[in-house]
């Protein structure tokens, strides 16, 4: 697996596409600014949402149990999964009981986290992703590169070619309207035929036992309302205490994500439809570990709007796939090391620590501080990239010893190309400035 910096190097090899990616996401960020600034209460709402989440996390056990009791009373089957494996087994068992071989699924980053599609494929069950962006990347055997805009790394020419290969659209047709219509027809067939539908969950309400799913396309609803069995998969951190809390979260979510006033469909699933079977799977998979660590607990407040992606100067210029995780960007970089420290040790370093992510976060997660905490933890655990460790050690020795410092400085001034090595990636895209002939100390003595 390529590290973030290695994968980014491949991504930016196409300068024109990198610029397009950068500008397109910045445009989404600008839409978010417009949609938030028209509300004078915006900052008060962020604070309010943050407090609701703090309160919920402080009482998560009670709220989970309250949700469970209400949901069961509403006729929903509630399942608990300690990890991805258990989650996938539960979902498989429900599908197998129906005997379905093909099922539909709307967007759920949690099922990406669990690699549910691969697991079900190994059991002979085909999952059809029904969000347009997700269907595109699924055809291409790729992962989503953005949690809200899964195919943002692709150009319409790429989508046209993919649809030509998989849906038989005319070669060379790259009109978004035409391609979306082709997907509509193709997926409608699956919606009408599928007996099981999987959806994600945006919010689960402890007070009522209902859950809310937000989409713009209507794909979650098309699947869930036609299927005999609806399985909703959620992380335990998606709980909120009261129904009225949804007001502030629904206002913040769409405005932060895409600059919309609200998502087109915000569906409140309270009870199964007559004759329907409804399941909800509550997944831990490391979330309780994150909750127990005061440094990282706040990351569980995330409502998955991706505003931090769109504003991040590193994400915009390195693309989602460079993060080799289902949730990329700044928030992904603080969530992923909790699941696997070693495999994701590069991610907290994929940041300039500029703090823009924390500034746009609708629930006020201190993302850039947590990135910095992770860097310290990873250095201590000996998991930082080797070049960085050696470089930092050399620097520490040099700065602690005036003699070495002076000799080193004079060497560097004379042979500045010494700095231009693989140990110092900073110079990969930069030119060395001309070094002065004497140091400040020498100049001071000779003046």
């Amino acid at each position, binding site marked *: 697996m390529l590290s973030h910096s290695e994968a980014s190097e491949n991504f930016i090899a196409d300068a024109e596409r990198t610029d397009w990616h950068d500008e397109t996401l910045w445009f989404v960020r600008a839409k978010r600014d417009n949609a938030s600034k028209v509300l004078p209460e915006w900052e008060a709402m962020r604070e309010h949402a943050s407090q609701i989440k703090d309160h919920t996390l402080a009482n998560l056990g009670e709220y989970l149990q309250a949700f469970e009791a209400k949901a069961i009373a509403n006729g929903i089957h509630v399942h608990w999964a300690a990890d991805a494996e258990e989650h996938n087994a539960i979902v498989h068992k429900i599908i197998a009981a129906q005997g379905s071989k093909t099922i539909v699924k709307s967007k759920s980053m949690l099922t990406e986290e669990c690699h549910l599609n691969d697991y079900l494929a190994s059991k002979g069950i085909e999952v059809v992703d029904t969000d347009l962006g997700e269907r595109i990347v699924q055809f291409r055997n790729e992962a989503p590169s953005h949690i809200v805009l899964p195919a943002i790394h692709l150009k319409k020419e790429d989508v046209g070619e993919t649809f030509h290969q998989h849906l038989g659209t005319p070669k060379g047709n790259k009109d978004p309207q035409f391609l979306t219509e082709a997907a509509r027809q193709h997926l409608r067939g699956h919606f*009408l035929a599928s007996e099981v539908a999987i959806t994600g969950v945006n919010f689960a309400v402890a007070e009522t036992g209902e859950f809310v799913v937000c989409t713009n396309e209507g794909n979650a609803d098309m699947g869930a309302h036609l299927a005999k069995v609806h399985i909703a998969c959620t992380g335990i951190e998606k709980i909120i205490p009261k129904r009225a809390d949804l007001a502030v979260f629904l206002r913040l979510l769409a405005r932060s994500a895409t600059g919309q006033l609200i998502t087109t469909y915000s569906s409140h699933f309270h009870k199964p439809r007559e004759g329907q079977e409804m399941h909800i799977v509550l997944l831990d998979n490391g979330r309780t570990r994150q909750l127990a660590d005061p440094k990282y607990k706040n990351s569980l407040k995330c409502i998955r709007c991706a505003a931090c992606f769109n504003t991040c100067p590193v994400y915009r210029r390195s693309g989602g796939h460079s993060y080799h995780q289902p949730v990329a960007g700044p928030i992904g970089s603080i969530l992923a090391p909790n699941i696997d420290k070693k495999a994701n040790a590069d991610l907290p370093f994929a940041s300039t620590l500029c703090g823009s992510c924390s500034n746009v976060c609708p629930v006020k997660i201190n993302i850039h501080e947590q990135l910095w905490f992770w860097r310290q933890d990873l250095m201590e655990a000996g998991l930082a990239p080797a070049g960085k460790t050696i470089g930092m050690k050399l620097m520490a020795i040099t700065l602690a010893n005036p003699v070495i410092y002076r000799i080193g400085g004079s060497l560097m001034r004379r042979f500045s190309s010494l700095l231009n090595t693989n140990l110092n990636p900073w110079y990969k895209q930069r030119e060395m400035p001309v070094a002065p002939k004497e140091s400040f100390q020498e100049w001071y003595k000779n003046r």
Partner: protein
Amino acid sequence: MVQESMSARDQILGKIEALEPVNHPGDFKGASKDFDFRASLEVVGARVMTTEELAIEFPGRRRYDKTLDGLSLAEVEVLEIDGEFGVAENGAIWLTEEALPHRVAPFICQHLVIHVKKIVPHMHAAYEELKKPNASFGLFLAGPSKTADIEQSLVIGAHGARSLTVIIHA
């Protein structure tokens, strides 16, 4: 499976330790009220019509009772329904299962017509309305189905209704 899931449940709840208490901030106060429902409908891509204009635009529209199943509704060209109330800040309309022929109806039809008799200013007021006993299924619907998944180009009519027409009787 009951045993398995019970153990995961206990395992998860056992790992959650009580944290320092933090108060719930209560209902949000201080929301702006100066919103225009019609303007918001335009932003979310809906059309506002009078009953006379509606008669000309959709002469074939009709209402459906609850006798049709979800799949049969796939043939519906224009569906006419009643919304419970509209939200001025974002053009969303609250719909409940009780007032729909079927849950899938507002998604599966090609074109959707909704009558709105009541408008509230914002989402906080909307949830005040929803404090009474819950519908089995309800949703806020704002405009026609849309996507921008191909190069951020906005396309109307992804999976759900291709158009939304709103008749305001307030």
